[in-house]
C-alpha cells in the first residue's frame, strides 16, 4: 500500500539545512531562502479550528485500523501526519472526506466535525463535503484528457460553464497551483504528457478549481523527484494562506520543512500531536522520539 521512501535517515531538526535542497534552479533556491515567506506557526499562536475528530475509530472488517483518535486541525495551517507504513495515517486522512466509504467493508465510529458540524451524520451530502475537503493522492492521477478539461472537470460536474467562466477558472486554478506559466500555451494538450511533478500540480489545480476549504494530501511527493517535491512544498506554503492542509508523509524532512503541527501515528493510535518544532526537537513520548530520530520505522 504505502511505499518506503529512502529518506528515513536520522533527522536533523534544522530545517535550514540545505543538504536536501534541489540544485540547479536559482529561483527556487532564492524562494526557499527568502525570509519574507510565511513561517511556521509559533507556540501560543492559534488559528481557527477547522476539523475536529472525537474518538474516531475506523474498521476494515474486524480489523481496527484507527483506534480512537482525538485531534484538532486548524485553518490556515499545515498539519503533517507521520508514522511507519500501515500505522493508519492514510486511513485517517481518507476519513476526513469520507473516501473510505468507497472501500467495501469499512466502518467508521466516533465523530468528525467540519466547522463544528458532523460529516458522519446520516444524510451528509458527500458531493458538497468533497468539494469543501479536496484530496490529492500519492500517485498523480490526472484524467486522460486535456489539461484544460482536467481543471474544469470538477466545476462542470455541478454547472454548465460559459467559455469565459471556464477559461477564468482554468487560469486561476493553474496559477494557484503554480503551473500556469509552464502550461498556458499547451492547455489543450493531454495531461498525460506532463512530467510527474507537473501532473501532481495539475491535480492540485484540479482540486483548487472546486474551491476547497481543506486540502488533504496523501504522500503527494512520494512519486516525485526532489525538485518537483520542492515545488510542491513551496506551493503548500503559499496555499496555506487560504486553506487548511493536512499532509500524510513518509518523508520526515518534508514534515519538518513545511508543517506547523505534526501528528505521529503508530498502530492506529495518535501517539503525539504538537507543534512541529516540538515534535522534532523535544517530543514527549519516547516512541515519537525514536521515530523522528530514525531509530525505527
Amino acid at each position, binding site marked *: 500500500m504505502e511505499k518506503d521512501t529512502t529518506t528515513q535517515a536520522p533527522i536533523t531538526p534544522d530545517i535550514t539545512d540545505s543538504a536536501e535542497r534541489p540544485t540547479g534552479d536559482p529561483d527556487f533556491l532564492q524562494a526557499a531562502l527568502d525570509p519574507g515567506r510565511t513561517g511556521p506557526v509559533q507556540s501560543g499562536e492559534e488559528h481557527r479550528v477547522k476539523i475536529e475528530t472525537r474518538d474516531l475509530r475506523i474498521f476494515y472488517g474486524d480489523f481496527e485500523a484507527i483506534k480512537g483518535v482525538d485531534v484538532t486541525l486548524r485553518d490556515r495551517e499545515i498539519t503533517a501526519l507521520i508514522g511507519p507504513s500501515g500505522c493508519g495515517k492514510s486511513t485517517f486522512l481518507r476519513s476526513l*472526506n469520507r*473516501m473510505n466509504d*468507497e472501500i*467495501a467493508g469499512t466502518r467508521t465510529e466516533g465523530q468528525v466535525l467540519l466547522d463544528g458540524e458532523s460529516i458522519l451524520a446520516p444524510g451528509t451530502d*458527500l*458531493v*458538497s463535503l*468533497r*468539494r469543501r475537503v*479536496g*484530496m490529492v*493522492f500519492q*500517485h498523480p*492521477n*490526472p*484524467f*486522460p484528457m486535456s489539461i484544460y478539461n482536467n481543471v474544469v*472537470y*470538477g466545476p462542470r*460536474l*455541478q454547472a454548465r460553464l460559459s467559455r469565459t467562466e471556464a477559461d477564468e477558472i482554468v487560469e486561476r486554478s493553474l496559477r494557484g497551483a503554480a503551473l500556469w506559466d509552464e502550461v498556458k500555451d499547451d492547455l489543450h494538450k*493531454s495531461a*498525460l504528457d506532463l512530467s510527474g511533478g507537473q501532473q501532481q500540480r495539475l*491535480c492540485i489545480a*484540479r*482540486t483548487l478549481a*472546486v474551491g476547497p476549504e481543506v486540502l488533504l494530501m496523501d504522500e503527494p511527493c512520494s512519486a516525485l523527484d526532489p525538485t518537483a517535491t520542492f515545488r510542491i512544498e513551496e506551493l503548500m506554503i503559499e496555499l496555506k494562506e487560504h486553506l487548511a492542509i493536512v499532509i500524510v508523509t513518509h518523508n520526515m524532512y518534508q514534515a519538518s520543512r513545511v508543517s506547523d503541527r505534526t501528528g505521529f501515528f503508530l498502530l492506529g493510535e495518535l501517539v503525539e500531536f504538537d507543534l512541529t518544532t516540538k515534535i522534532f526537537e523535544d517530543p514527549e513520548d519516547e516512541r515519537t522520539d525514536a521515530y523522528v530520530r530514525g531509530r525505527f520505522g
Partner: protein
Amino acid sequence: MRRRWLDPRVQEHIAFASLWIVMIVVSLPVVGIMGYMLYRGASALDWQLIADAEEGLLPAIVGTTWLVGLTALIAAPLGVGAAIYLSEYARPGPLLRIIRLAIINLAGVPSVVYGLFGLALFVIMLGFGRCLAAGACTLALLVLPLVISASEEALRQIPAGLREGSLALGASKWQTIRRVVLPNALPGIMTGLILSIARAAGETAPILFTAAFYWLRDPYPNSLFDEIVAMPYQLYVMASEAPGVPIEKKWATAFVLVALVLGLNLVAIVVRARLRRRRW
C-alpha cells in the same frame, strides 16, 4: 553449488524454438482451411457468385449484415449495462456470485439450444414469426455473455486512482462512470462487441428456426418482421440438402463466409490498436 544441467543460453534457444513451433501449429489450421477452401472453390469465386440475379450471395450477405447489425444494437446496451452494474455497483456477495455463474454458464449453452429457445420465445410465444427480429434477438442472447465479460474486463482495467480522483472532486458514482470510466474503457468494450458480432455472423443453429430461409421470392427485408436469407444458413443448406449445387460453389461460399467473419475480427483488431494508443 552444482552446475545447471543446461546452460541458460541453450535453454533460451530451446524455449524460443519450442514456442515458435507451437505458434506455427496454432496458426496452421487457419491458413490451411482458408487455403483449402480457396483451392477447392477458386473456380467459382467470381463476381457472379456474389451478384448473380438468380443465385448470387448478395441477398445472404445483406441479410447477415442486417442480422448482426441488429444483434449489436440489442446486445450492446444490455451487455454494457449489465457489465457496469456488475463491476461498478454490485456489492460482493452470494447473489453476485450466482449472477456471475449464470453468465458463465450462459456462455457454455450450445447454440442449437439458443435456436430452440428463440423459436419458442420470439417466434411462437411473442408471435414475431420466423423473421429478422426473432433471429437478432436470439443471436443477441447468444453473444450477451461474451459482451458482458469483455466489457467487465475493460472496466476493470481502469485504474482505481482515476475513479478516486473523480469521486474526490465531488463527482457522483454515475458521473464518474459516465465521464471517466466509460470513455476510457471504450476501446476494450468495442473490441469485445465486434468480436462477439463476428461470432454471431457465422452462427447457423440460432437462426435455423428463427430467421433464415434458403430461398425467398423477395430476399431483401423491408421490415424487422420480414423473413431473410443469411450466409451461414445458405451454406448449411447448400452443403447438406440443396440438390444440384456445384461443389466449387459450396467451397467458394464457405470462403466468403469465413472472409466475412475474419474481416470483422480484423476491424476489431484495428479498433483496439487505434483506441489503445492512450496511456494512463
